[in-house]
């Protein structure tokens, strides 16, 4: 495959490949961002 | 021996309380009846006897499952009033005796409901059972035990939770999926006579195994749940 055929949306199979690869990154990235947001909004303990 | 006496005491207490009010049996009975009526209206069982036979097992168990959830939600309410549960926790009797007594009591309530519901169900759905109907006398109690033992346990688990009426089905339904599969398959096998007896036997054995495993786990972990904080 090339970038050109990766973004070839003509058949259902090709569309689904893009959905899978984009969706996995979006889901995992969103979860990581959610953790990071919470991390930033809970202040650590002062010592 | 004393353990059995403790179980018996808890059981008799629950039965006496239920006999005085008859709240949960009446509620369950009417609720299950309504589910059966609604399913009857939705699927039109009279015109399609073969399809009815295939789906009747599933409808029966779904009705019983939902009905028993409504009753199990109330099962521990009596213990909450007047801090009875705190007294139970301090009692020298083992916690699992309380659990088992409660399970057997709920089991009896649901069995009464089933005994009334089964003939009504057969009438409303025009069921002509093709298989060995006496096997149902084995499948129904085993399946009921699977629902009740987990339901009682999870009702106690969610007892102090916010919106516990919602929490019980959320916990009970996923856990009872294997049991539900086995009892629906076995019941449908008996109703349609499509499965051979070896397959029905396997489903019944699985159901029995499920009952044994989850009763054991429930007995072992109940004390932890009772003294959760």
């Amino acid at each position, binding site marked *: 495959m090339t970038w050109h055929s990766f973004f070839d949306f003509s058949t259902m199979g*090709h569309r689904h*490949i893009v959905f899978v690869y984009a969706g996995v990154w979006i889901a995992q990235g969103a979860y990581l961002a959610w*953790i990071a947001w919470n991390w930033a909004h809970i202040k*650590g303990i002062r010592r | 021996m004393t353990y059995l006496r403790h179980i018996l005491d808890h059981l008799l207490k629950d039965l006496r309380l239920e006999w005085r009010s008859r709240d949960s049996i009446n509620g369950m009975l009417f609720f299950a009846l309504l589910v059966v009526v609604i399913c009857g209206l939705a699927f039109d069982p009279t015109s399609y006897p073969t399809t009815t036979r295939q789906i009747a097992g599933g409808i029966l168990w779904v009705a019983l499952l939902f009905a028993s959830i409504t009753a199990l939600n109330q099962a521990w309410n009596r213990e909450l009033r007047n801090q009875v549960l705190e007294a139970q926790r301090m009692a020298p009797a083992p916690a699992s005796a309380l659990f088992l007594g409660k399970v057997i009591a709920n089991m009896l309530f649901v069995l009464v409901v089933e005994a009334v519901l089964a003939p009504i169900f057969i009438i409303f759905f025009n069921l002509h059972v093709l298989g060995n109907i006496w096997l149902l006398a084995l499948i129904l109690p085993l399946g009921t035990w699977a629902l009740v033992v987990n339901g009682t346990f999870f009702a106690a688990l969610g007892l102090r*939770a916010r919106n516990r009426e919602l929490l019980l089905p959320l916990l009970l339904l996923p*856990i009872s999926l294997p049991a539900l599969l086995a009892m629906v398959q076995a019941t449908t096998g008996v109703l349609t006579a499509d499965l051979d007896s070896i397959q029905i036997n396997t489903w019944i054995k699985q159901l029995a195994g499920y009952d044994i495993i989850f009763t054991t786990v429930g007995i072992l972990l109940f004390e932890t749940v009772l003294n959760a904080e």
Partner: protein
Amino acid sequence: MEQRTPTLRSVAWLWFGITIAVLVVGFRQAIFLVPAEATMGDVQRIFYYHLPHAVLGLIFPYVNLIASLAFLFWRRRDPLNALTADALAVAAAEVTVLYVGICLATGMLWGKPAWGIWWAWDARLTSELLLWLLYVSYLLLRRYSPTGQAGTLGAVLSVFAAIDVPIVYMSIQWWRTQHPAPVFGPNGGGVDPRFYPAILWNMAGWLMWGILIMLFRFALERRRQLAEQEAALHAIEASLEIPQ
């Protein structure tokens, strides 16, 4: 703790960088380098993201179970250790929901072009769905539980879930099966060695990513617990100062 934090932080950033690099290599292998599969064509490339999530989604529940058992063991004996175990249990449960959810979604997106249906009620799919449902209900239980009981109640449910999933898997296995047999392991059909680089790079990448987010989530939960403890301590100190 103070000396450990900067080192830990740089290790975490390094780990994050390596993980991203491995995932990029995995992506390149899966999409551009590995040849297309003979019968299914390019659709089969979904497999390289589907398999790691499926396999890892079965590993994190074990982390959750072990942490839950450790919590139940330490609950009375050593409450501070128990809190740590509880934090690990939450982290593992959330990552399980994420990985199994992705596995289900990618599986559906693959099943539609390959089988013609989105979903089949077969052994693997149903038990994977049940696993997902159980861990969602685990997280809901923790949310709804009163303060201080979430750990215990969740740990008990985790034990139930650990027993339930194998049962449902075995009970459906001989009932219906459409999903292809596992490709690895004793009964595996095997994979053409030409596909190995894509599989192994993605496996390694998502494993590293999973460890990263699980430990990050664990650290977040620890931070939350410590902040709560400190707030409680302040409240006690404040209440001691008022009278006299």
